[in-house]
């Protein structure tokens, strides 16, 4: 019997943005829609945090809702929270809340609040899901809102559609094949490879990453960052690939991810436009998370789970800062100096803080995670693992370069005030507290992630043994049947 949460947190936090999306889509007044959206995101964040805290009190690996309506109707536990997803859910809700909170009036007209709330509901549902087909269904659904936005902005959707189309086909075909083939057969290997490629495509692993830069350039910044920063590709790896892939396959993928990380860090250094720069910076970091996940060692996996949270938080904050700057001065070129420090010192500080947190600077939330990740990578690949350090060093150079370009180098005169607004200041303070607080007191977070990592590794071992037993039994039954028939 699976333990129950004390309230139906999961259903509440999925239903709230879903209902909010319906309400907001009927509102004509954009300003009012923004306020409603903000309230809905706030409420969803409260439910998500409630789930996290409630789950923490249960001291269990997994749990489902109290008064689970879905289970009552379908007789199946669809929405489950476990140690992997428990902190990812409030993080996802926080990202949406921060994005909506820091959306200025200048952006209200072109940012779709209805589709944003819909995307939030889908994302939270994905993170609450472990059932492979349900995860696939939600991952497929999540690709729709950005496509609709690209269409409504009359931008070319060919790159997005071709990549996401391939992603959907690989996911569905891979899972279907996996269900049809036994472990160890060629069919199962092909199915595993298809699911892996799908997950890597969604994560933007080189050479399947071009859709990401394209999305950042053609969609609104808010939509693009909300589509990529929750790292659902990594989640797909954990739910769909990790349980079935052998160690050698995972470690081979880790090397590809490591290459992507260094490549993207190098690409971030030569970018001349802020969105594209952010995209490569994010790609480099998300690839580092994948490296750790695919090492499947306790230290490597713990590091990856820590970096997942720290990078999710810090780079989302970094992107929001860039978005705030974009809403003030338009497209941000990194070719020239903008000298915004004197106008917005708070944003400058947040830009630097979030950027440094993402590379694991001491005293920030990313420090211990990166240390663990480097230790894990070097433990498995003594020489190649050093690439993690190289990627972090290149990212550090790129971040300070961007900081200098955006905030210094000239004296900027402006006829209007560019100072930070109240809502933005709130977002800045929340992010700062989380980044510094997580950096100064890392033990609770690391302990929780280590526990999750160990549980995931042992579950993977148990599942693997069980699958092998089932297949052996199946083969035995089949041969007995054949003998009887003869």
């Amino acid at each position, binding site marked *: 019997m699976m333990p129950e949460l004390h309230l139906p947190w999961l259903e509440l936090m999925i239903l709230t943005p879903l209902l909010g999306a319906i309400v907001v889509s009927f509102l004509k007044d954009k300003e009012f829609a923004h306020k409603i959206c903000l309230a809905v995101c706030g409420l969803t964040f409260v439910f998500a945090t409630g789930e996290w805290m409630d789950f923490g009190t249960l001291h269990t690996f997994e749990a489902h809702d109290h008064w689970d309506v879905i289970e009552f109707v379908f007789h199946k536990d669809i929405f489950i929270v476990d140690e992997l997803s428990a902190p990812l859910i409030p993080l996802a809700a926080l990202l949406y809340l921060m994005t909506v909170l820091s959306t200025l009036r200048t952006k209200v007209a072109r940012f779709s609040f209805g589709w944003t709330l819909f995307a939030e509901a889908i994302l939270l549902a994905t993170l609450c899901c472990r059932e492979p087909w349900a995860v696939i269904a939600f991952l497929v659904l999540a690709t729709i809102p950005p496509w609709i936005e690209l269409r409504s902005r009359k931008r070319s959707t060919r790159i997005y559609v071709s990549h996401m189309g391939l992603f959907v086909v690989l996911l569905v075909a891979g899972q279907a094949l996996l269900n049809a083939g036994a472990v160890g057969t060629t069919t199962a290997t092909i199915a595993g490879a298809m699911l892996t490629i799908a997950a890597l495509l969604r994560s933007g692993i080189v050479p399947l990453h*071009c859709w990401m830069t394209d999305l950042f350039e053609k969609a609104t910044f808010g939509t693009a960052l909300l589509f990529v920063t929750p790292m659902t590709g990594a989640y797909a790896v954990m739910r769909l690939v990790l349980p079935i892939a052998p160690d050698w396959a995972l470690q081979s993928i880790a090397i590809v991810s490591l290459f992507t990380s260094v490549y993207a860090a190098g690409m971030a250094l030569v970018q001349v436009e802020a969105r594209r720069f952010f995209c490569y910076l994010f790609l480099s970091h998300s690839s580092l998370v994948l490296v750790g996940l695919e090492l499947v060692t306790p230290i490597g996996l713990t590091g990856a789970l820590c970096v997942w949270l720290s990078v999710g938080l810090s780079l989302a904050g970094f992107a929001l800062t860039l978005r705030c700057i974009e809403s003030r001065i338009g497209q941000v070129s990194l070719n020239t100096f903008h000298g915004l420090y004197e106008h917005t010192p708070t944003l400058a500080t947040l830009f630097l803080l979030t950027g440094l947190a993402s590379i694991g600077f001491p005293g920030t939330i990313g420090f211990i995670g990166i240390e663990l990740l480097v230790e894990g990578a070097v433990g498995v690949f003594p020489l190649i693992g050093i690439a993690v350090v190289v990627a972090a060093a290149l990212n550090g150079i790129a971040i300070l370069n961007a900081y200098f370009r955006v905030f210094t180098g000239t004296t900027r005169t402006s006829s209007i005030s560019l100072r930070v607004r109240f809502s933005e200041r709130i977002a800045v303070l929340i992010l700062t507290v989380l980044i510094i607080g997580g950096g100064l007191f890392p033990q609770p977070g690391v302990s929780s992630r280590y526990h999750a990592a160990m549980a995931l590794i042992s579950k993977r071992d148990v599942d693997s043994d069980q699958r092998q037993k089932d297949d052996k039994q199946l083969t035995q039954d089949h041969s007995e049947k054949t003998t009887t028939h003869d």
Partner: protein
Amino acid sequence: MTSELLFNILGITIVASPAALLAVFSLASLAGRPLGERSMARFTETAVVLGLLSSLVILGMMLVLDRRHVPIEIGNWVVIPDQHFHFHLKLVFDRLSVPFVVLTFILCGTVGAFTSRYLHREPGYGRFFVLYALFLLGMVISSLAGTIETLFLGWELVGLSSALLVAFFHERQNPVRNGQRVWSVYRIADAAFLIAALALHHLTGAGDFEGLMGTGPWPDGHATISQSHALFVGLLLLVAAAGKSALVPFSGWLPRAMEGPTPSSAVFYGALSVHLGAFLLLRVSPILEQSLTLRIAVITLGLVSAIFGTLTARVQTDIKSALAFASLTQVGIIVAEIGFGLRYIALIHIVGHACLRTLQLLRAPSLLHDYHTLENAIGSHLPQGTSTWDRLVPVRTRAWLYRFSMERGYLDVILDEYIVRPFVAVFRWSDSMERRWTAWLSGSDEKGSDEVPPNTSSVEDLV
């Protein structure tokens, strides 16, 4: 109260005072209520005096109680017992760390007092003191670090504050570019340090300096790792030290660092920051003893840097750059001394040199004025005599040496041409290929970033 408890209280106070200073300054700025000049100066004075007095009391207690090694366990910051992973925070007071931390507080205190007047009513007054507090904290942590992880933590704080201070006058492009260059070199040094720390962890199973360097207080420790391992780890640490102390081939950042305000140049790049690499080599000196090749490498690098520094210092046209290269000369000699195993001499050399250089750099802004007064008084330029070298060295060689020194040994050019430019060219080519690929896939060239013209500025912008 037992002496151990007193040691603990004083040790924690030394680290806590700059940490509290940083917290107060940062929180006030973040809350949108920055402190006034007078309050900032008072807070700084209190923190420095408190830290200095605590370190002096510890020094006195060590002398009275005849203790050469006082470890202070702060505990594990992070621990995963099953995997033997721990981030151990530990302070060590010994014959190396105590002089260094006292020196840090004295020089930072002097510069803090000088700056409160020097930057009076400057727009960046508050920003300077936030970075100053970050630097002080980094230096104190580095000086007292009892584990290699703790040293790395302080090392990174020093790096960030130094780079941002070089770019202090950030409304101009040159300081910003120089800050970026300093940061880039530091990142390379940090990467080498991190890899060395990991390698040491794997070789010895501990990050504690006692575990790494064997038993015995500094400087009597004996490393337990093999010769080949010592060479590998030692070379990485030498790269880290070379980056931080501006040794050849990373010397190019030192004169650029003088772009910052004079007080920061004085205390950071002339006195403390520039010696941090030498401090690292002193701290891990038992490793150097394990490998003759490594010691030869250290001595060679030190001597080459010293010769390069003395040649280049003679042709500089501004006083801060001349002092920067004069610093490099001394740091090079200090590194060579460490290579020869003269640890106490190196430590005394660091202390003496740091004090002298701080005084010279703080004096630099008014020196020019005094020179003009002197020249006006005698009615001509000050006489310049010829040296013995002028008579011994042929004119062509002197001309070549002059050009070589003027171009600062072509070190920056070599790094730019042979490392940065190929690196940047590869990624720019990849970027253009990716753009062509996405343009072909989407059937159009409509991209926001295409409206931004390609970067045509020098590669220096990226270093």
